[in-house]
């Protein structure tokens, strides 16, 4: 394991290697080397199973972090490969030739985040949403509650009991401040 990581560090310049659990290690790779790293992991290191491709929106740093989680059935170990791409020009190399299921994940990311994967089959087809005319919904600047109230309305009579308010006002009015 460590020997493999040393080799990958030398050849692909991976960084931020953190062992989250005995069976899961995270690493970050640059956008240019990502596809060749995934190919190497699949072909020569035995990480043949692609669990999923997903994306985390770090709006405060202005990046999208694409996450590819691969699994090795022989060593029973998973690698989570992080690739940072820019939020303004969201484009990434498509890996639909590496795994036959990858095009579905890429299609979903295109719809939910707006990330383009040039060459991926049926990329612009609607996946979950039909007739969607707003920004891609999983982006953090999209306010889903506001949209739901404007588009679908809001039925009166809904009553919420927030325990924190109840405790502050009714049970402990002289306490003052939030306790950790």
């Amino acid at each position, binding site marked *: 394991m460590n020997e493999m990581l040393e080799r990958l560090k030398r050849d692909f310049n991976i960084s931020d290697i953190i062992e989250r659990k005995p069976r*899961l290690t995270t690493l970050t790779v640059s956008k240019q080397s990502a596809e060749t790293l995934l190919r190497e992991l699949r072909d020569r290191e035995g990480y043949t199973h692609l*669990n999923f491709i997903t994306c985390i929106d770090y709006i405060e740093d202005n990046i999208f972090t694409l996450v590819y989680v691969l699994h090795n*059935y022989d060593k029973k170990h998973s690698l989570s490969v992080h690739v940072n791409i820019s939020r303004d020009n969201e484009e990434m190399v498509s890996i639909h030739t590496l795994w*036959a299921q990858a*095009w579905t994940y890429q299609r979903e990311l295109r719809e939910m985040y707006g990330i383009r994967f040039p060459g991926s089959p*049926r990329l612009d087809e609607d996946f979950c949403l039909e007739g969607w005319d707003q920004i891609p919904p*999983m982006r953090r600047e999209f306010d889903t509650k506001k949209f739901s109230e404007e588009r679908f309305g809001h039925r009166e009579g809904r009553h919420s009991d927030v325990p924190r308010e109840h405790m502050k006002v009714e049970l402990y009015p002289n306490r003052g401040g939030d306790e950790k």
Partner: protein
Amino acid sequence: MKTYTGHSSALDFAQPEPVDMASGKYVRLWQGPQHPGITGNMSLELILDGDTIIDCKTHVGYLHRGFEKLMERRTFIQNFTVVCRIAVPEPTFNEYLYSHAVETLSGIEVPERAIWLRTMNLELMRLASFLMWIGGQGGAFGQYTVANWTIAYRDFVLDLFEEMTGARIYHMYIVPGGVRAGLPDGFEKRARDIMDGAEKMLEQVERVMFNNVVFKARSKGLGVITPDMIDPYGIVGPNARACGFARDLRKDEPYLAYDQLDFEVITGSDSDAYERAYLRLQETRQCINLIRQCLDRMPTDGPFQADMPNVLHWKIPAGETYVKAECTRGEYGYYMVTDGSEFVRRVHVRGPSYTHAIAVMERLAVGNNIADIAGLMVSLHTYPPEIER
């Protein structure tokens, strides 16, 4: 080092040559959302040449509620109430995986009795789900009697759930930290009676369904998954085990109490609809056996929930984890990222039907008779809600 040989013609199925619809030779038919022959609320857009399918496109999204966005707006303890609705026919695995991910990230240890209770709850859920599935597979080929038997018997298992957790379908029993309550008195005897009855009923089901000439003729050779399709398409669960790959997360990466139970991984030889169905029948019997073992070995006293921090002010340190479990359909996973605040940063739910229902289904449907599509879809055991969450 083993080298990898993927299947190179996958793109032929993902993006096939367009069909000349103006020639009048082909018919475009939607086996659409309102149809008794699909496993839930999704649709297949089929292009037929006579009775044979030459192209199939899966359309999902009819059940999309945007869970991953909703979970970012709720605190950790509020999320546990919504997650069970992600996979509607088999909700408990979501509760367990969400709780496990939160416990892994915040370093909470679950007590011994809670581990056994969780194991038994998950195995009962697996039994209920398989009983519904057997009914669905029989019904897809016209054997509605089998469906009536198994779905009616499943009600007794739902009664057990009601005793244990308070609800039939959405239990909300497995919370971060343990479970919500212990077992009521007399539960063990009732559970054993129901397991005995289930075994007798499964014998009858095997005689009626699996020895039936029509079922065999229709399902043998239907939807064959070859071994070189498993890794490129990410096929997991009984679909892959029927091909000969002995991959079961309960044995490979044991979680909960599975390292203390004894059971074997069941495999088949070549994965067509009949083999997959028979494998699932055997797994149902194995499941009954596991429930009996849990009832034998479970500790009867001890705490069932760990000491939790104040859940209304619960901040989990920044981190990331991926937890998985073996549900009836394969590997179910939760990927969770936290950033130190009260809200979860990102949750991604990996349902096994994501690839089975879209990429694999579109490939296996080509070349089949339209009458067999319902049976093929049920034999892959796909549940639409976990595809689009």
